[in-house]
């Protein structure tokens, strides 16, 4: 005979989490208390509930004690709700007969007073025990996953993720905003610590993307809108007009030669403005795809409507089309990888470093171009005033670790500063002074690289640069004086140098907020996208089916970026290969005989899941479209919409439990 006899039998468990919970919450007291509550037949504590023995204990009790409800007080449900639900269902109970109490993140970790903490735990445990009574057995919802993937951003992260997926046989759409893929890595000269040439390792991957049959590469394009959900996103991509017909252009560059501007005179983005380009240009020699682009902001035809259009005439293949309009592509994908990258910190924001005021103050990215063999000076370090520096100061932490700009350490600056020190020394034999706060070189072969630079004679001065100003004592040469406290020898030093390199940090892109909204993911206040869990789900977002790769999630170097891109691709593949994803059954439904057909709920649903049935004169919710926010439930004026997992009774019982309402009941009977 069943012990349950139709009765509710609750098993309650509280986890010590080592001392994480038990150090603050008196778990014995909570267990003793829970045992006195109605319907509780088992009340236990254990060192680690999420461990195998912990789970087995629950399963054993479910079977032996014929439990039909389980409540576990442990960490956040985001961490282990799934674990305990699985344990519950493996013991033969519907997994939704389970309720979790957040006793670690939202209790033990944030409160100091053990008494208050224990009392809070008891309130929430009582609340969960009351709630779980109303739980219903539910089935999980499964959603099929479309196999195609959208990768947003064509830097090294997007390139690597796309190739990984394409090599696994999946169809990939790679969308890049700029006219070429390659991102920041394409601008670098060499990479630390191995000093391999960035172009040599990147360009083969760029052409592999271009030539891969499974990759549709859309450059000079932007994602306009994203609708739908994991498994079935509908994405609209805008292909900006490059005024060149892709299929006809062979990259011969004749049109550039023919442009009415005889000399290049506009800011060249790829070379950070250190050289000039024409309105019609190829971003850089290895640009992928090998297509020129016409920039309407500088082209005289677009600005004045008057031009001889020599570019059009020059093209034998008639590839120049000045009337080209934006084209819109609509695609359906099951998963999305966001790899939108970073932006270097705007060095002008640290006003006293004189960037933009003194021509010989450079940013690190400018120096990358300056020392690059295919850069504006063909790799010779010739400064804006035409001279070659004999002494160079490299200023670390520009815009980083500073409450006035950005708090974070950008992680790569120390190492690229060392790299630039080496390359500048190699190119100019100049004296190099690195002004640093701390040298941070974690990772494989990184500190060895630091040692090597020291051996090469690069000078290191521990002190943050406080002021940079022209050296007035030297009237002809106008060198720059770099002033700082050398904190190790405790002296204020003024070092006259010819060139200053500002090692700027990595910051989120200006439109991070728009991108975040577009994909319905979250970002920190500074603008880096937030991963689902910093350790256990580092490439997932809070939105199922959308993954992160590269510096859009936070500053990182190339190896980590590539590793993360691979991980994001693997996460997408895991979904695609399973073919479906299980979702919470927290959908809303309308009880037809209760609905008066007042139609108030219909406009509330952003997913158009609610429709009005003209025949029955009632509203109806399409479960497949419902995302389970519960807004219509709260709004239904006659209480005729319910939400699975969040029914009114369940929430009322939580409120009752928290406030221990029984003690009042006698008082309020009449």
């Amino acid at each position: 005979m069943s012990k349950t006899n139709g009765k509710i039998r609750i098993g309650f468990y509280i986890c010590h989490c080592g001392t994480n919970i038990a150090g603050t919450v008196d778990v014995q007291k909570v267990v003793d208390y829970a045992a006195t509550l109605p319907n509780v037949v088992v009340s236990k504590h254990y060192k680690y509930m999420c461990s195998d023995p912990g789970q087995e204990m629950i399963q054993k009790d479910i079977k032996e004690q014929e439990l039909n409800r389980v409540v576990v007080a442990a960490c956040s449900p985001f961490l282990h709700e799934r674990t305990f639900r699985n344990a519950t269902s493996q013991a033969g109970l519907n997994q939704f007969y389970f309720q979790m109490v957040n006793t670690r993140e939202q209790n033990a970790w944030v409160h100091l007073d053990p008494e208050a903490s224990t009392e809070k735990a008891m309130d929430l445990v009582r609340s969960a025990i009351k709630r779980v009574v109303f739980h219903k057995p539910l089935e999980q919802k499964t959603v099929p996953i479309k196999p195609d993937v959208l990768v947003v951003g064509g830097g090294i992260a997007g390139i690597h993720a796309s190739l990984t997926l394409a090599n696994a046989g999946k169809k990939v759409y790679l969308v890049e905003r700029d006219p070429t893929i390659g991102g920041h890595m394409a601008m670098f000269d060499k990479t630390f610590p191995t000093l391999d040439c960035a172009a040599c390792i990147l360009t083969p991957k760029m052409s592999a993307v271009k030539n891969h049959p499974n990759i549709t590469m859309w450059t000079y394009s932007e994602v306009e809108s994203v609708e739908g959900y994991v498994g079935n996103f509908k994405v609209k991509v805008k292909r900006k007009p490059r005024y060149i017909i892709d299929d006809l252009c062979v990259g011969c560059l004749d049109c550039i030669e023919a442009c009415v501007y005889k000399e290049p005179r506009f800011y060249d983005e790829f070379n950070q403005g250190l050289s000039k380009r024409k309105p019609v240009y190829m971003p850089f020699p290895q640009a992928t795809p090998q297509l020129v682009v016409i920039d309407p902001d500088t082209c005289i035809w677009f600005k004045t409507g008057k031009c001889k259009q020599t570019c059009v005439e020059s093209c034998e293949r008639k590839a120049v089309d000045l009337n080209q309009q934006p084209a819109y592509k609509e695609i359906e994908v099951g998963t999305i990888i966001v790899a939108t990258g970073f932006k270097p910190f705007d060095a002008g924001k640290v006003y006293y470093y004189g960037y933009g005021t003194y021509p010989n103050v450079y940013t690190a990215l400018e120096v990358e171009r300056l020392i690059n063999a295919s850069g504006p000076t063909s790799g010779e370090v010739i400064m804006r005033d035409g001279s070659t520096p004999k002494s160079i100061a490299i200023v670390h932490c520009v815009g980083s670790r500073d409450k006035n700009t950005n708090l974070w350490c950008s992680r790569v600056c120390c190492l690229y500063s060392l790299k630039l020190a080496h390359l500048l020394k190699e190119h100019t034999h100049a004296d190099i002074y690195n002004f640093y706060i701390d040298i941070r070189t974690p990772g494989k072969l990184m500190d060895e690289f630091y040692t090597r630079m020291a051996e090469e004679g690069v000078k290191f001065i521990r002190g943050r640069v406080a002021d940079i100003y022209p050296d007035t004592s030297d009237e002809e040469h106008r060198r720059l004086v770099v002033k700082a406290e050398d904190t190790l020898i405790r002296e204020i030093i003024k070092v006259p140098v010819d060139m200053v390199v500002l090692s700027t940090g990595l910051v989120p892109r200006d439109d991070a907020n728009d991108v975040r909204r577009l994909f319905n993911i979250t970002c920190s206040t500074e603008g880096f996208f937030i991963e689902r869990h910093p350790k256990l789900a580092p490439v997932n977002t809070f939105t199922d089916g959308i993954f992160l790769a590269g510096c859009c999630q936070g500053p990182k170097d190339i190896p980590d970026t590539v590793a993360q891109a691979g991980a994001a691709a693997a996460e997408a593949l895991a979904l695609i290969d399973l073919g479906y994803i299980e979702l919470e059954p927290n959908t809303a439904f309308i009880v037809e005989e209760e609905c008066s057909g007042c139609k108030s709920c219909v406009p509330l649903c952003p997913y158009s899941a609610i429709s009005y049935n003209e025949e029955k004169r009632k509203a109806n919710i399409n479960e497949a479209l419902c995302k389970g926010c519960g807004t219509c439930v709260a709004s239904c004026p006659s209480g005729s919409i319910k939400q699975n997992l969040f029914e009114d009774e369940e929430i009322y019982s939580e409120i009752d439990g928290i406030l221990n309402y029984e003690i009042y009941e006698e008082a309020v009977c009449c």
Partner: protein
Amino acid sequence: MPDKPKLAFYWCAACGGCEESVVDLAEDILFVVDNVDIIFWPVGMDFKKSDVEKYADGEIVVSLINGAIRSSEQQEMVQLLRRKSKVVIAYGACAQYGGIPGLANEFEKEEILKWVYEDSPSTYNEEKVRPLIKYKANGSDVFLPELWNVVRPLNKVIDVDYYLPGCPPSSKLLKEAVLVLLSGKLPPKGTVLAPDIALCDECPRKDTKPTDLAFTEFLRPNLHNIDPEKCILSQGFVCMGPATRSGCGALCVGGNMPCTGCYGPTSRVKDQGAKILSSICSNVEAKTEKEIDVVLKGIPDPVGTFYRYSLAGSILRKKVSI
């Protein structure tokens, strides 16, 4: 005719409309009179309290009590009727939720007395005389009922078996209720003897209501004309219909006025006012605090609008005094 079931009517804090509704039965009242023995009906016939006291406990089969409870006398009378009756029905909105008298719960008793006996424009009372609960007249003590601080629905004072909603209940519902009671097939205790679905269900303008409701302003029926063909809510007038039980046949809408909610909420709702607030506000179009406030200003008295009949029976019951 000792065998006919005994029936009592009583009124508490009410306007008298519920009593009228009994008369509204018209010729059907004869049917009622034929089948029951009305043993107490202060409005209609001359009975005394002592007449009721004479009956044995439970001897009265049904008491239909209308009006809210706000004085010592009303409490005393309904407690007496409860003792003497098998079944007590809260009759009408006031007995069920406090009704219009329940809106007095927005004020303190002293505020009310001061207004009525001193400050209202039509009052002339220089000595500020107030009624006494007990005074001597011709040598003997005379008692007046004491006004309570709180207006209560009937079920906060005595145990109530059934509810007949409405201000007043429609005669159709009353007749159906009487028939059910006479048949002896009693519904579960606590039942509201009206359909458990909102008014829109039977509203003649239901089909004119759009599915893309979005409020940009709220209008008041005393200041703006109502289109007699279209859903009143969709024109921007607060209509309580979506949050109110049906059963009246959408009488007010038939008279081109919005529903004010007298039938109370459905059984699934604890607080009618909160629910209609939730629904109507959710459908406001504005998105910023400022813009939202501008639109919501069109409802100058939210408590009086959303809780017109249900304040005393709502979750919060009454203004909290310090």
